[in-house]
């Protein structure tokens, strides 16, 4: 992986990174901030991130502070390339909102999505019926959890 490796992170990868910067998700986001991989985001991803981090239970559990959150958003907007208005090539009945991450990756020509979302990760599990069709349609796109992504990053260096 290099600075030209295009990646998409799902919204909870960002939230988890903020809470635990030294954990796997945190290290993934730090790589993007340092420009070691090329991160793509969309207004919908930022909206979802804002909505999750505005939930009272999330604010209370993670002790989120508005000033730090705005700092984080600003950093992401600078580190990432923002894409908007791309086509919805893929739809996903199991969780329709997850399809946006796949469509963003396709629009960005990214080959990797990083997520801990089971619905997304199951698209890589050939024992699941939805995975076969997905992998036939998008053979070069992979969905990894943060630990897998870091493992691949380290072994590529």
């Amino acid at each position, binding site marked *: 992986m290099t600075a030209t490796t295009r990646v998409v992170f799902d919204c*909870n990868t960002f939230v988890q990174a903020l809470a635990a910067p030294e954990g796997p998700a945190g290290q993934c986001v730090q790589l993007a901030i340092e420009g070691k991989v090329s991160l793509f985001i969309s207004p919908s991803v930022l909206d979802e991130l804002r909505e*999750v981090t505005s939930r009272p239970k999330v604010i209370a559990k993670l002790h989120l502070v508005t000033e*730090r959150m705005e700092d*984080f958003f600003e*950093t992401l907007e600078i580190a990432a390339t923002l894409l908007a208005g791309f086509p919805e090539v893929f739809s996903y009945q199991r969780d329709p909102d997850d399809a946006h991450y796949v469509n963003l990756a396709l629009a960005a020509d990214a080959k990797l999505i990083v997520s801990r979302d089971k619905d997304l990760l199951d698209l890589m599990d050939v024992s699941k019926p939805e995975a076969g069709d997905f992998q036939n349609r998008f053979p070069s796109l992979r969905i990894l959890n943060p630990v897998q992504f870091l493992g691949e990053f380290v072994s590529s260096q």
Partner: protein
Amino acid sequence: MVLSLSISAEAEARLKAKAAAAGVDIETYAARHLELIAAPPRSLKEISGPISEDFARSGMSEEELSEFLEAEKHAMRTERREKRAG
């Protein structure tokens, strides 16, 4: 250094809205972002500050955090769909 830049009307409108939300004028907002783009990459730990310190003290594992966040994300998505459906 003083820069004179041409941007689209759409970008100008978005920048104005963002500057207003941040409580500054568009020149200050744009200059601050240019400074940030030119600055060395920041540490996520520094940005997170007390948030990560509190999380470390909480004793919650990464797995527990992930499960909690996934549950909240899916609850948010369900509420959003219900709201859209009226």
